[in-house]
């Protein structure tokens, strides 16, 4: 990657700059709150209290975070290969079909701990398949993956509406969703885990075992990207396709494999709302989580250790935002959409805006840390 910017020490690169960007994004969001006539500081307090002030709040926060860990990982894996998988939304949505079919088929015969692995496989498989065509077209035909994955989001939405309205809806029911799953299609809740820490959680709280699956996946993604040959190849491709080709890495293979993994991760997100909470396949259950994944991956710098906290932060925004809407009638949950957009803007598109300034500050304190003028200054 030929960045036109000089190098900074790692802690500034991975810690300081994202933090500054994030602060600016939240400051601008605060301005929007001010613009609608509310107090941004009070809004922030309500938000944090709503998300972390009670056991119930924490359970919801982590429930939302589960979705975002999956989609964030999906986007991040593709980023490492230099691909932009904007289709997490569609991959997760269509994967709901896989989860739903497994649950509908086995919920009366198998216990949950047997349905769960099958559903994981099904969701990953369907999500991966949905990413396969854009991946193939990118690898073989050079069609821009951003455009094809956007198109596949819309196609997925149409397919799901058709399936839910015309095929999977039980006879006589009005709501476009599948029937409720029986015991075998319901994942156990994790409320007790929080209760261990002395927090009060009602059994209705949706936090479930797929949160643990998300954490396992985060670890596996770390292993894959930084500790395997495949991960090395993926990163090489991301840094320089030319170098990768020169090293004999098959571009087609890496693009397709990366997108399959990315799609599978996005697909697993479907487990959380469907088997963990709703116990049926409703319309629009993804509701933007695929896109939040972009913000999460950008904020987390495509590293699982960054993605998990970023996902929890967004989980906090989702849960706290719901509380905020109660307290401040002028602020609805759509405030989060703005924050999300601002985070994507400042942590993603404008990530280099403050870099020259920060570099300047570093250079004035210790020139060597920035790698400039050290040779000149000392030897002269």
């Amino acid at each position: 990657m030929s960045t036109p910017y000089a190098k900074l020490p790692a802690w500034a690169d991975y810690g300081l700059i994202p933090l500054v960007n994030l602060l600016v994004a939240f400051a601008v969001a605060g301005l929007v709150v001010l613009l609608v006539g509310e107090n941004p500081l009070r809004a922030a307090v309500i938000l944090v209290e709503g998300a972390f002030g009670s056991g119930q709040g924490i359970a919801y926060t982590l429930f939302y975070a589960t979705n975002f860990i999956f989609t964030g990982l999906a986007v991040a894996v593709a980023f490492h290969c230099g691909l932009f998988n904007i289709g997490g939304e569609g991959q997760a949505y269509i994967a709901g079909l896989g989860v739903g079919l497994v649950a509908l088929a086995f919920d009366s015969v198998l216990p949950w701990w047997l349905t769960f692995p099958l559903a994981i496989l099904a969701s990953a498989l369907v999500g991966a398949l949905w990413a396969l065509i854009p991946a193939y077209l990118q690898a073989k035909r050079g069609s821009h993956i951003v455009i094809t994955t956007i198109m596949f989001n819309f196609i997925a939405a149409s397919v799901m509406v058709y399936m839910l309205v015309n095929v999977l809806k039980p006879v006589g029911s009005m709501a476009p969703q599948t029937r409720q799953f029986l015991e075998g299609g319901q994942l156990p809740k994790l409320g007790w885990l929080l209760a261990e820490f002395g927090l009060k959680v009602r059994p209705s709280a949706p936090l479930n075992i797929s949160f643990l699956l998300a954490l396992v996946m985060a670890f596996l993604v770390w292993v894959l990207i930084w500790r395997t040959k495949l991960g090395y190849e993926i990163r090489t491709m991301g840094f320089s396709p030319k170098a990768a080709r020169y090293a004999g890495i098959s571009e087609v293979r890496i693009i397709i494999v990366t997108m399959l993994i990315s799609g599978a991760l996005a697909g697993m997100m479907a487990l959380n709302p469907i088997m963990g909470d709703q116990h049926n396949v409703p319309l629009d259950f993804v509701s933007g989580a695929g896109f939040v994944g972009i913000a999460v991956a950008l904020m987390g710098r495509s590293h699982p250790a960054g993605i998990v906290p970023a996902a929890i932060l967004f989980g906090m925004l989702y849960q706290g935002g719901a509380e905020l809407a109660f307290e401040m009638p002028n602020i609805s949950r759509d405030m989060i959409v703005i924050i999300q957009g601002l985070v994507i803007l400042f942590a993603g598109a404008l990530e280099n805006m403050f870099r020259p300034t920060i570099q300047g500050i570093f250079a004035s304190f210790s020139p060597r840390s920035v790698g400039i003028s050290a040779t000149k200054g000392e030897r002269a």
Partner: protein
Amino acid sequence: MEFIDTLINILNSTIRVSVPLLLACLAGLYSERAGVFDIGLEGKMLAGAFAGAAAAAVFASAWIGLLVAMLVSVGMALIHGFASITHRGNQIVSGVAINFIAAGSTIILGQAWFQQGGRTPSLPPEGRFGAITLPGADALRDVPVIGQLYSGLLSGHSLLTYVAFLAVPFTWWVLFRTRFGLRLRAVGENPAAVDTAGISVTWLRYRAVICTGILTGLAGSYMALAQNAGFVKDMTAGRGYIALAALIFAKWKPVPAMFACLLFGFLDALSIRLQGTPLPIIGKVPVQLMQALPYILTVILLAGFIGKAIPPRAGGVPYVKER
């Protein structure tokens, strides 16, 4: 006779749904031809529609609405430009950000200012662009076929509809017959060459992005001030993305862009018309299939099965001046 009426009816609604697509598509054309990818068309349209409707409601004037819509859309376009031209950020990421900011802030501001659940107040007639009856349309109404086509199809649209269709030859002229257009296309193919010729790549790209803002503002105004009487939350409903698809479908050329938008508009109009009615031979076509067809067609095109869509060569690549 009934067939002609039905046909005119469908074609009429085709035009109505095509106009915002067409304006957004041409908007994307300027930006992408200059090498700045823009998936933020959707957001700019939405912001334009909201700003236009809000201003038109407050000042009870369609023209003020249009002006404000264009200003806001240009503002959003400049943010995209600032991120992707000045700061060399990722253009896709920036476009996604624009879409989210527009989607969220239109609802939040709409609710805060008008307290109608994210809607703007319903516009009075002077706050909208009404239908224009072309000269002689009423007199010709009873002439079979030609008169019907003239009075039923060509006449009776809002000013913005005519502007949209006139923008097609205008865009063609600008891009292919003016110096600005030549440079704009050059900067999308080989910015280094343009730079060598002593022309500022940055300023050219900014101008292209401003054109995009103006046209998306028009597209938003059409939706809020002509097609509907006010802003409804998330009213663009993915049209920005269809416009993007149409742009690729048209291989980044203005006249094919018009036909692509008309085709996608026709599919949309047809799917509304055919809802639930079975077709001869094929039987009942699911609405969802019709709705997904523009996207499916675009993917097939991108796959290279119907010609090949080659984007501007420098598209999506920030220009770094060599030192």
